[in-house]
């Protein structure tokens, strides 16, 4: 039985590796190991580990300057790393990574149509002096169809709305027929219906087998939709399914906000609080048992009566004093 200190603020268990039951049998198609990145002489990422499997929709979450974009760029070999490795496995190793940059990075005032903009992304893979072949044209048409942009294929890109522009960028990435999609803040600056539409697109791309990694500031939507969240602030603070990351502590540490921040409440996160052991006794018949989400070490025979709230370490059944505590 785990002994609990009196009035001890027990932190939530911090994950640094995925513990998805359903994904454990699939090997990862992207492995990021011990990445250190410096930019302008200052450390931006330290000891970052990340594994992504096909079919996963992963959210990279963190404050501005946390290193989310830097991590994406490091995976793409756009930013040099001081240490660590990025590897693609299986079929992903034979394919390009589909990169969807932030919307403002694209020259929307260029006189090109949507189709030409999507086709331009396969240029590099063509090599010099080669024209796009029929299979490239088909890949472009499939990408346009997948992002529901076929009816706008001949429209100049400058005339598109924000949501349509985002879909063009996704189509550009899909034209490469990648196994992995990296999206940098695709939802920023878009209204709710557009975000909903794009979320549906990313979810279905993941369901089709793509590994989709996106950075986002929309925490509520991320918790609702993503398979896995990675909280990052220069290093990985926590990683897990949205239900595994329902403890406020990890989010507080990532965003450095107060525990009373209204967004944390809106996210439905559980607060940490002092937990006090007030005695041990066997569970009584019919007594509701409160089981923590997180399995914990220790024997299950004894029962500890605790007062307080928060997540706990230890196995067993915890009975809370009436009216106090959630777990």
């Amino acid at each position: 039985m785990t002994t609990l200190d009196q009035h001890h603020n027990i932190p939530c268990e911090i994950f640094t590796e995925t513990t998805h039951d359903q994904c454990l049998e699939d090997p990862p198609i992207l492995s990021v190991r011990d990445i250190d990145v410096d930019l302008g002489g200052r450390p931006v990422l330290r000891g970052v580990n990340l594994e992504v499997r096909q079919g996963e929709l992963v959210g990279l979450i963190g404050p501005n300057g946390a290193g989310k974009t830097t991590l994406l760029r490091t995976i793409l070999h756009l930013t040099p790393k001081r240490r660590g490795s990025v590897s693609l496995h299986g079929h992903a190793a034979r394919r390009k990574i589909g990169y969807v940059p932030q919307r403002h990075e694209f020259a929307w005032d260029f006189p090109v149509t949507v189709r030409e903009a999507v086709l331009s992304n396969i240029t590099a893979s063509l090599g010099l002096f080669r024209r796009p072949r029929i299979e490239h044209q088909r890949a472009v048409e499939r990408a346009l169809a997948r992002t529901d942009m076929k009816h706008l294929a001949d429209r100049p890109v400058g005339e598109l709305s924000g949501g349509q522009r985002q879909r063009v960028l996704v189509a550009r990435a899909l034209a490469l027929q990648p196994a992995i999609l990296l999206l940098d803040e695709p939802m920023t600056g878009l209204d709710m219906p557009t975000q909903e539409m794009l979320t549906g697109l990313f979810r279905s791309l993941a369901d089709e087998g793509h590994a989709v990694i996106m950075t986002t500031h929309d925490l509520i939507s991320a918790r609702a939709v993503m398979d896995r969240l990675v909280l990052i602030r220069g290093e990985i603070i926590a990683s897990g399914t949205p239900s595994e990351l329902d403890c406020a502590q990890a989010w507080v540490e990532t965003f450095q906000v107060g525990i009373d921040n209204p967004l944390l409440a809106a996210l439905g996160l559980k607060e940490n609080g002092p937990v006090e052991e007030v005695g041990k006794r066997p569970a009584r018949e019919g007594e509701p048992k409160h089981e923590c989400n997180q399995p914990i070490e220790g024997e299950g025979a004894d029962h500890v009566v605790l007062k307080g709230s928060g997540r706990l370490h230890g196995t067993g059944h915890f009975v809370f004093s009436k009216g106090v505590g959630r777990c």
Partner: protein
Amino acid sequence: MLTPYEFIQDLFNPMLSFLPRALLMAVVSAIVCGLVGSHVVLRGMAFIGDAVAHSVFPGLAIAFVIGGSLALGGMVAGVATAVIVALLSQHRRVKEDSIIGVLFAGSFALGVIVISRAPGYAGSLQDFLFGSMTGIPREDVPAALIGSALVVGLLIVFHRQILAVSLDRETARAGGLNVLFYDVLVYVCVSMAVVMSVQTIGSILVLALLVTPAATARLLSDRIATMMTLAALIGSLAAIFGVYISWSFDYPTGATIVMLLTLSFVTAWLFAPRHGYVTSRILHKR
């Protein structure tokens, strides 16, 4: 004012052999600058284009003073500036427009000092700054034509790559394109276009030949291939009519061409079929 017939007669007059040469060089320059200038305008490089145009001047001046090939001197100076600017603009964090401003003013001043050491410098300076119909030697024409063909050839062969880099540098880089190479390529093409045009139109106004036809074409078209074709066409027409008018009235050629280009831009800005200021108001009212 000369009638068009009289102008054509003058073109064939052996005593006026500089005239058809000037017209040919003006038209060829306009075509090359229209194509290169499309990239300058679309990539927001007008300032850098101006810097390269001004930096060509000390190369021309030094070549002039030592009696070397003007084209070579101009090319060396232009390409050197182009490479420096391309390297500086790789890291977008650096506010490069101040550095460019410093570089091009400094290089221009160097050119003025160098040319002041040459005998008869005032006349030469006038020609360099403002262009001269009479100052184009016959032996320069073949080199200019070859150079033009080379620039146009490079732009056509590497069109897709340049376009991919211009649309989204980071995605292009992620896809494996050598962004620095294509940046330098565009800047080198700008230098070559400028060197060829400077003798006709002068180094102060050559920027207009780069920017104005392409900017006008942008108002008239939403497709890049059409825009580049129109830019070359508009520039050529302005060159032909500019040489004609300047020959008729003894106006400076370069300035006349630029005035015609400016008028064409203003007309397009007002009356372009889709984007014209006046046109869109009329369409809006309906």
